[in-house]
């Protein structure tokens, strides 16, 4: 059961792919989120949102022990993400009342259960928290590939640098969603091949 968290370190020189990169403010709302299969955006919103729980937990645990020399990299947050959050139109029910407008409702269902074991686990979420409590979450597509911790670290470092550049822009108001072509380029480079 717990081997994914610790194991899975088979050394293979494959490339790591990020499927989703998110930048989250101190107040826990997203500044930037980008994902590769652009269609299933909401899923990644949920994925990143729920992983904030772990980030906060890790942060609070760290805060108790060491004072300021904190490791920015939080490591693996969740080994896998396991929900297929697919849209289900409520109109499938024959409405008794006059039909309301089609508001899509997303229903979580079809979890990857244990009977279909770890082969289906293909995403890992990694966290990184800057000193300003700005959080970075990267979801890695790890199917059939293994990756080194160092690669993830370097990705985060790259992301942090790009974020710092954005913040250096005098025309950027802190707290606004990031709309920067340069930043986009960095992210898309991370999304493809490292």
């Amino acid at each position, binding site marked *: 059961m717990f081997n994914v968290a610790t194991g899975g370190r088979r050394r293979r020189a494959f490339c790591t792919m990020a499927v989703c990169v998110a930048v989250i403010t101190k107040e826990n709302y997203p500044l930037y989120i980008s994902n590769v299969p652009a269609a299933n955006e*909401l899923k990644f919103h949920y994925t990143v949102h729920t992983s904030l729980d772990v980030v906060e937990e890790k942060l609070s645990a760290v805060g108790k022990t060491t004072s300021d020399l904190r490791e920015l990299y939080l490591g693996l947050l969740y080994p896998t993400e396991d929900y297929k959050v697919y849209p289900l139109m409520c109109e499938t029910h024959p409405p008794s009342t006059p039909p309301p407008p089609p508001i899509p409702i997303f229903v979580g269902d079809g979890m990857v259960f244990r009977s279909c074991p770890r082969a289906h686990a293909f995403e890992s979420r990694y966290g990184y928290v800057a000193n300003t409590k700005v959080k970075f979450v990267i979801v890695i597509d790890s199917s059939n590939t293994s990756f080194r911790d160092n690669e993830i670290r370097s990705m985060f470092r790259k992301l942090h640098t790009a974020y710092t550049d954005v913040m250096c822009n005098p025309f950027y108001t802190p*707290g606004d969603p990031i709309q920067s072509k340069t930043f986009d380029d960095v992210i898309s480079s991370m999304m493809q091949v490292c």
Partner: protein
Amino acid sequence: MTEPDYTQSAEDHQCLLVVVKPLGSISKSNFSCVFNKISSVEQATLQDSHRATWIRYKQYYPPENNDWGDFQAHRRVVGLIAVAEARGTQELALIFESFDGLRGEYGTCLYNWRMFVFGLTGEVVEQNRTDVDFVGDYERLDGLTRTVEEFTSSLFIVLESKRLDRASEKAGDKMPLLCVPFEKKDFVGLDTDSRNYRKRCQGRMRKHVGDLNLQAGLLHEALVNYHIAVETLRSINDFLWLAAALEGLCVASVVSHYGTTCMTTKARHQGASTQAEREQRSRTGTQEVLIDPGSLTTNGIGGDPSLEIGRAKNCLSPDDIVEKYREAISFYAKYRQAAVIELEACIKAVRVLALQKKRSEAADFLQNAIYIHVDVTEDERIQRYSVLSELYERIGFRRKAAFFKRISAMQCVRAALPEPGWKACYELLLDTLQGYNISLDNPQSSTESHHGWPAVQLRILHELVYSAQRMGNPALSVHHLTFLLHSMLDFLSEQEKKEVSQTLERYAASCRGHSTTLEIRESLKVQPIALSKLPIVRSMKLINLPPNLRPVKLKSGDGLSTPISSSSPFIYSPIVVQQRREQRANQIDFQWVQGDVCEVQLMVYNPMPFELRVENMGLLTSGVEFESLPAALSLPAESGLYPVTLVGVPKIPGPITIAGYHTEVFGIPSRCMLQNLPHCKVMCSTVEVVPALPLTQLTTSLPRCSGLIAPSTLGDVCCNAVVRLFNGETQEVSVQLENIGKQPVESVELEVTYNHQQGDSGTCGMTWDTQELQKLIPMQPGSLVDLTLSIHANFDFSNTDGSLADTQDEMSTAPGTPFSSPARRVTRPHKEYHTPGGTPPEQNGRLGPSPLKIQEAVLLVHYTGGPGATAGYSRRLSLSILIEVEPSVVFTNLTAVPATSSQRCHLVIDVQNQMEHEVQLQSIHNDDLLLRPHENKRMAAQLHRLNGSTDGTGSPRGLQRAEAEAVCRQLGLRWLILSNGRKGEASVARVVSPAVLEQLRLAPLQWDVEVGGLTCIGEELVSTGVGKPLAVTIRLTNGTAVPAGPFCLELRPFLDFHNGLQDCALKSVAVFLGSNSSHLPQIQPAGVATFHCSCLFLFPGDFLLDIQFQDGTGQFPASWLCLPTVHVHVSEQPA
């Protein structure tokens, strides 16, 4: 084993399971009442033992789970209680039958059973069964409790005996193999004699004994047994049972560490409690604190310290508990059939870890629980997600909790369900809101800076709206949709904005008029959402009344000019300035008037990508009564700042505060309070309403001005007019004042102010008859009053301002001053053309026609009446009159020429007609002068010299002006246009230069010339005879303030041939007796110097006697030293 029990906790391992079932026709409420009574008995004790066992009651337990009773003893149903209600013996028989059936269902493992029958009281029931109790009615339940206590004690006794049976079994004895249902067929035909098999039997039995010990409250024995079981089972790789033994070990340790957390609270209700229980309870009161096993010493359950130490040794540390649980669960995971066991173990472990505050480990266990596949029904699926959510909540992962709660909500309305539970879905969704940082009852919190994750918040709100709608509560869905639109506006795309607002409009149409507080559930009441972003109000400003309606505080004792009282001794202090600034920001310096329409200006902004219709927009006020007049407006898409004026009428005088505004957008009424609008700039919102005032209107006979005047020059002007005059003309204007208000006008005052932007060049005067005005008031509403104003134009009659002043200065000294020194003449050679008798200056030609002169005057009408007058307020009406003045005649040149008499003087005026009309110029002492258009003419007028003295009081400038006015009065110049009869005055007051005035003044050095006994001023003819001495006395009086002199004086006779030639060589014609010249010494102020001589003419003729005078110091102007020339007629005969 198919149905997992999600409510289990680790402590349940030490409980005896009792199933309570209803039988017969017992009502649900009665049963639950009885069940509660029964379940209040939580502990069973033995009379002679300090130990206690816990009882767990369940209403439903699947009998097949009973088969796992060997595996984990707490899963076995050991007691059965039936609660029945019978109305007759026949029914009773049926109940007995079904009770027996129930007993059979739970098998032989039942320790004891009991049935309570209600309803059969009065009848004598044959008591042939010991296991049935007849309880009279539902009121007498105390006896029931006692019976249940007896029953549980009996369970404990059976348990104790079983435990002792098992414990007494020796290792060598043949032991039965305990196994779980799915194992049974695996062990068929196995060699029962093998060592492995024996060990398996032993290990499993040890584990079972451990369970029994745990249930019987013997923690130490349980721990020991579990340890042995673990050792034994590990050696033979019996993983399922090893896992169970490990779990048992964990459970025993948990109980040892934390006591029975969930049960102690309930135990309070129990009536009878032993000393041991009390001790236990006091120990478990500190359940939240992580207790170090070592510190558990004297206060433990057992009195035996050695037992205590032994337990501490066998007991697992908190960290070990996690590890062992982890191991156990990983062993369970090897068996698919044990999925439920694994799932329950995970949940139990999470509960323990939550207690230990090991959140991330707990999250790992929960994560695993999610993976475990169990075939469940739909209801159980919902329950499963709910429990997961609850557990996440417990470990502080509120986002995860919200996620699973939402999934659980979605399960309620799955497409597969025949009857979707929208109500349940809605309730569950409501629970998720906290996790997504949404607070329905406090929408304002989201206006400042956004909290939470917009994308997921948006989703959950959509779902909430939809489920509320499907639930059949449109008011709620309208509320939620409004909330969504309000708080998520910034995150909606244009298309979404459109859709949401259309939906909202449709929903709102279906449920009209909800604006009250909605109660979603008891703890959650929501206020109606104020759509303060549709439209966004950027600023709110109270507008002063238009100038003619503004109330003006009448002048009273306490001036408004000193708003700061002498609270501070400092003239300047930054604190005071700050306070003043704040004060100024908070108070409005104008008032509104009762009964008059008052305005508030809002700058609004429509953030929507479509036209926004705002209906019923009006003001919300506090303070005095205010009638708001709502407006409807339509804001274009993505409008910029758009000014909107909201109006209302204050009904009562007093302070009024604009608290906010109300709108209706998409059919949703909202009340937006200013205090909740941080982005709205409000200067100040409180204004004073003064009592009602009359209202008048002013009209004039003059044409309106086309608006050339800048209105700011003289304050607020509500009415304007223009009048055109010739310079010097006076015109009468009719002004009508009409009372158009509801109050009588009781007092009217007129005041006029001028705009002196043209400097000193002249003004226009406006006069009116005050007496006549006073006769006309009071004015009743609707009445009309006529006033006559006379406007007089009095501008500069000089040609131009600048250039003329200079030339005048030069001119005035030069011409007509025969005593000017030659030196001065040399320095001003260009003065030549100004000599007397010369032509008018040519420079007039190049100046061209003079432009219009414009004067702005404002006539202020202060009037008051009605209640406002008593409160000390008045209204002001202002009429701005633009007076355009055309030049009439101008005086191009003005020269003073001394007359023959030293008391008089001639003024030579060059006058030009600048009009297009023929004009007649009249003056008092002279003939009329006719001037054709643009003609220059010269006229002369004789004036008395001015006897003003230089030592007079007042400024020299004022003096000059007074002298100039006096000159004008003497002249009395008037012009008359012959063609149309318009006439006016012409004043030289501004044309007369100081130098000219100087000449017009009487000199302060007073000369008295006496010739032959005749005082000569000028023009006198002195007659004398030939050879007769003519006495000449010249007396000089110094009227100045300074010493004068010394002077040189010389008498010189000459002949004037009247052709420009003079013969001064008269030494043989006239002789002097005495000196003809004299040196006058310095004369002190008010001193007198006298000169005497006599002149003797030797021939007859007309002689002139020139008194030449030289000022040695040059301190006086030449005109002061001008002495008359004496005309002497010498006749042949001596007179």
